[in-house]
């Protein structure tokens, strides 16, 4: 692999070997001689915490510094020992790698995919000729690689299941896949999306709480700065106290969605929509709802605020109702239904909340 490739995909085996071959220890790297490495690592981490831009190279020689900045950022993340930072960092690094993959050549993309656990295989069946894309009056749009690539990527079903484990949404359900003899057909976009998931898992898996933050030097300064940023982001958007809302009354689907959000996992769009509509319906204010999403890895403040306002009806004029159980089921976000959910008359998460409340109230009176 060329150094430029190593820099784009620093989590690969070859990249680790590359760094190892240079034989630079963590203590050596803290010296001023590696100032550019420090800057890059700091930029990486700031980017993970509050999305403030990728490190830019100024000179061609900086590529080695960029490579070294990856293990250094990992070292700092381990030293800070914060679950959210681990999630944010691995999410962001994987996202950037996926962006790069979109414009990657076929061979390189497939070899990276295979290394993280999503090997592509030849089609298990003769490829059927799909109807031509260009229909009467329709012009092909977009000419970047991902749009032009009409190729199929067949992956093993079991690999697919492991990779998509944390992605929800109907378009990923096994029942809606082209599944032939244990292989699933993906297009380039979906293939990369799964590879991104696996990259995230790989980055995250090694980030155990590590050694203490160094007692002095440049790396200590960066670590303390990042730690402060992490604390600020968390404080600004502290996970909600449910206040007047009674947590035991929340239906399992919403509890799952809440749990995922607070654990810093991404929610599929439908689930996020349903959760906001639900929290709104049970009387939570926009600020409280906003804080629920603050730990999401893909948290973007203005977008979240817009979505909340939109669903609450303050920007669109229409207040969205909580989706019914049927909709929840058909969009694949009816998680862990319990015996109350199974009742014939149960029709929406909001009904669950009201009914559960009544039952309780009855007993409190005695």
């Amino acid at each position, binding site marked *: 692999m060329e150094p430029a490739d190593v820099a784009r995909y620093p989590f690969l085996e070859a990249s680790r070997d590359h760094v190892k071959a240079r034989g630079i220890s963590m203590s050596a790297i803290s010296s001023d001689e590696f100032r550019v490495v420090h800057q890059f690592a700091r930029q990486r981490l700031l980017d993970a915490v509050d999305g403030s831009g990728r490190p830019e190279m100024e000179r061609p020689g900086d590529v080695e510094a960029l490579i070294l900045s990856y293990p250094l950022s990992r070292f700092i993340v381990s030293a800070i020992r914060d679950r959210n930072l681990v999630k944010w960092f691995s999410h962001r690094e994987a996202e950037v790698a996926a962006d790069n993959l979109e414009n990657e050549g076929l061979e390189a993309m497939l070899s990276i995919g295979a290394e993280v656990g999503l090997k592509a295989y030849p089609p298990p069946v003769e490829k059927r000729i799909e109807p031509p894309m260009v229909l009467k009056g329709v012009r092909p749009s977009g000419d970047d690689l991902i749009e032009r690539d009409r190729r199929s990527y067949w992956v093993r079903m079991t690999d697919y299941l492991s990779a998509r484990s944390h992605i929800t949404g109907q378009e990923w*359900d096994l029942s809606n896949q082209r*599944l032939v003899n244990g292989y699933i057909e993906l297009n380039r976009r979906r293939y990369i999306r799964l590879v991104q998931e696996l990259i995230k898992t790989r980055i995250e898996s090694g980030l155990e709480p590590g050694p203490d933050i160094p007692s002095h030097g440049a790396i200590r300064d960066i670590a303390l700065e990042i730690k402060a940023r992490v604390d600020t982001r968390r404080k600004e958007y502290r996970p909600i106290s449910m206040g007047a809302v009674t947590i035991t009354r929340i239906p399992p689907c919403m509890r799952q969605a809440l749990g995922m959000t607070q654990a810093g996992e991404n929610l599929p769009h439908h689930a996020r929509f349903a959760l906001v509509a639900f929290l709104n319906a049970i009387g939570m204010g926009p600020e409280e709802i906003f804080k629920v999403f603050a730990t999401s890895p893909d948290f973007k403040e203005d977008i979240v605020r817009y979505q909340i306002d939109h669903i609450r009806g303050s920007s669109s004029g229409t207040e969205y109702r909580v989706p019914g159980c049927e909709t929840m089921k058909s969009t694949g976000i009816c998680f862990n239904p319990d015996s109350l959910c199974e009742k014939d008359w149960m029709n929406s998460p909001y009904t669950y909340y009201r009914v559960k409340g009544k039952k309780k109230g009855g007993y409190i009176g005695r």
Partner: protein
Amino acid sequence: MLQAQSPEITFMRSTFSSYYREAMIEPPHRFARREWGFFPFGGKMMFRHIAFRNRDELEEHFRRSAPMHAYHSAAYYQDPGAQPMAEKVKGWMGADLIFDLDADHIPGAEELGYVQQLAIVKGEVIRLLEDFILDDLGFPRSSTYLFFSGGRGYHVHVRDPGVLNLSSNERRAIVDFITGRGFSIEVAFPKEVVQVNTRFGSSKSRRNFRSVDWGGWVGKVHIGKDRLITELSALEPSLRKKRLKDIARAGRVQAGDQILSSLDESLFGRSNGRSASRLKGSGLFDVFPNNQQLELFLRLVVSYSSISLSGETDEPVTTDTKRLIRAVSTLHGKTGLKVTPIPLDRIDDFDPLRDAVALGDDRVDIVVERGSRPDMAGGSHVLEKGVNKVPLYLAYFLIGRREARLHPHIRTGAE
């Protein structure tokens, strides 16, 4: 429930004791890595977290304790005998993928006899294997094992290396595929723009129904619609409507009588069922007057083509990666039948009441409330109301299923 110390329990226990003194236990694949669990005769709870280092220990345990029910884990552990104070102690190393099909999950099975129940479950197992496990899911025959459960169903074990480490969530995804859950008409048969009018900014779209060779549920819907229409065409109109209703109920498809009737009308009412025959065999779904009927029909086809797995909602088998399953070559305490491996190409011929009979044919006097003519071990038996002398295997089967009692002279004579 039979009393813990009743003569029947004593009889059953001593029958199993003599059996296990002689019989060979065929240890399951990697048995020393599995946790075992046993339910004793007259007992109230299962003893779990038992492990055997070798075949002798295993056989010795059966000789000594003659359990009513014997189970082992689907999972493999570093230390299978460790008490589960903390689950990590056992060291989970992966688990077979298990499918459990049992008569208790088939609607209306309670009204049928044992033989019919098992025939229905067998049909389901064949579909599970041919339409799912060996077909779309692509598991090789060589890592797929089929067992008669000794009771009222069949188990399929998949030991493909690809499945061993699947998490519970990932197993759930496979169950969802088999039960058709999550199937979305919008995703599977997407609406595609076929024409754009640039002047007026309008467009025309059409659902892409793809075709049978697309595989997955798209293929199943194409095959299923043909099977369903063939089946419905052979029925009287009133039975046809009842059948549609049953299919809707089984798949939890919400549809009132009225809309089912109009669907039936669209298929078979007009021009002598020409719509039905047009729909069958062609990839065209344009015989329905509106989208509502089309979607209902598709949901019914999915329900019709899916498999009901035992208790996946209340008592998960496939998705529980630590669950115990009945051990091969042991006896089922309620029937005396043996948990029997069935070669995949022999399932058609398999008859549990002939091929899973393991107990001997010593004569035993039993009392039955009403007469019957059960077939067992290749012979027909005539039972009259009152006292009958029958072979041991039949006596055990009837007593275990509480269809007979021991004759009083044995009852007083026993121990």
